[in-house]
């Protein structure tokens, strides 16, 4: 069932990404999409009656599968990295166009000719 929740969250994230025009909220929605994926992966490692995957010699309890957990650790970091960079880019764009509205930034960009386009400070 956790998997279904993960897919629902994925969908909510995409809706946020498409319908909200604020760039910061778009990034939050992207973060939600990534989190949903991670939730799905963790839900795979879980199985009924399992324990956390910490084992001592001679221990025979059923453990949750550690491999998805290990994958997810990497994925979380990668998502953070992408998010931080995207946020920086949003900051630079907003400093130039004074709006976080993606549609308006697109319009501004169309209006600007190539000569006008100067590197951002």
């Amino acid at each position, binding site marked *: 069932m956790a998997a279904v929740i993960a897919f629902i969250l994925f969908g909510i994230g995409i809706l946020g990404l498409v319908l909200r025009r604020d760039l910061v909220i778009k990034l939050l929605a992207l973060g939600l999409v990534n989190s949903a*994926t991670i939730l799905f992966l963790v839900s795979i490692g879980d199985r009924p009656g399992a324990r956390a995957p910490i084992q001592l010699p001679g221990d025979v309890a059923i453990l949750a599968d550690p491999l998805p957990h290990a994958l997810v650790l990497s994925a979380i970091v990668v998502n953070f990295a992408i998010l931080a960079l995207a946020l920086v*880019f949003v900051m630079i764009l907003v400093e130039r166009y004074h709006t976080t509205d993606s*549609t308006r930034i697109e319009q501004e*960009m169309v209006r600007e000719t190539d000569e006008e386009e100067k590197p951002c400070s």
Partner: protein
Amino acid sequence: MQLILLPLLRFVFAILTITFSKARKPLTILSHLLDALLLSQLVLLLLRGTPQAFTVGGAPVGLGIPLIGDQNGLTFAVLAWVLSVAVTSYTWQDGLRPYFFLLLNLLIGASYALSFAKDLFTAFLLLDLSTIVSFLLVGYQRRPRQIWASLHYMILSSLGMSIFLLGIGVVYAHCGTLDLSLLEALVRESAGESWVHLASALLVAGLAVKAGVFIFSLWLPSAHARAMPAVSALLSGLVIKMGVVELFRISVVFPIDLPLIVLGVITGVLGVAYALNSYDIKRLLAFSTLSQIGYILIGFGAHTDVARLGALSYEVAHGLFKALLFLTVGEAAKCAGGSHISVLTANSHQIPWGTRIAMTVAVLGIIGLPPLAGFDAKAILEDGLSSVPLHLIVLLMSVGTVMSFAKLAPVLFARSTCRTCRSHVLSYGWLAGGILLFWPLSLLLVPPNVNLHAMTFAHIAEALIVMAVGSGLYMSIRRRRFALPMEVFRMETSPLIILLGFFLVYALIALGR
């Protein structure tokens, strides 16, 4: 050992160039020489019939990360090396910061690792590494449009990678491993089950975003057209192909031949249509990249050995001529003061003649003049295709390519006296040499009987007719613009289109059963 050393050494050099930034030029030369040494050892091993293969760090089978130096991987690794040499020499005198070389080294290292790694999750990380690096490279000059393109690129590819990761999850839940060579048997066992379809559709849709497949890679035209020339060359020649290489890897395991062919056709035809309608040369090149990816996908999807070899050669050939085109057009645009075709034509006398010769070679390569790179690769590819409609579509794409590049003719044939700067000449010569000598060099990759078959009269005649028809058609419809929807390239629609693309892929996989 060489397999893991190639990426690791690049990573070490990447950090060394920024730590000892004064010594970055000798370090760069050293790293290229070392790479050449390691690559040639690997190629020798492969030619002897014992490709190197091992699991990283001696981890148990099924858990660790397997590396293999097979033909597909090595071809891509060599292409990465060739492009790395070209871009390094092109930017040699540009006074770029160590930061640029760090990113360049990381990108090449990631390409090496991706060519050898046969593990889904490692591929995910490598694709993400390449995304971040190229994200930073596209925005290097900090122009607002570059930054916007970068942001768009990043949002879409992050979304794509999330879809890919969902696919990885589904695969792992059912197989318990991510090793592609082990998956092959496991997936075949449960062929036809619904999870196989779901996993393949998710993996394909996710990768297609990175691979420059038209309905998915909506970020591509703006990113490639906005970046600086050296970066565009790498993006088109290398970064996109990382996705394509991974798509091919997956196509061996999962039943995705039909979607590959359909996506290839869509990409090829639509890419050509948009390229025809573009009068900004950099944008034209970006769209043409999409159409060229179409050939490669069709080749991989056809699933015959000859077609696979053709697709591999086309991968290399496209890397060579598209990189050369981006580099020369970049320099030409700088000299002429704009990359729009009218500006280039008007100021064509200001374009150095060396640049123009190199550009001519690249254009002839891409439109398939025998016996240059494009012709040879395309001929091998066509030999591998059995269905007639596919043949016709490939021909149509070739005609379209000729038509879109016919616009460049006035730029190519003009007089000028300026000279190209020396570091650029080296880079142009290196790539142009590859294009001109592609046929003899490709004997390393393609067995002689297949390769000789490409040089038949029928293929040569076909190529010449395509060129004639293409230029004739261009003359007749010259400058007539037709409206194509640009709405799809907007950030508000592209994620939805990616989902629609997923549905398409899913339907095709279900059909292909």
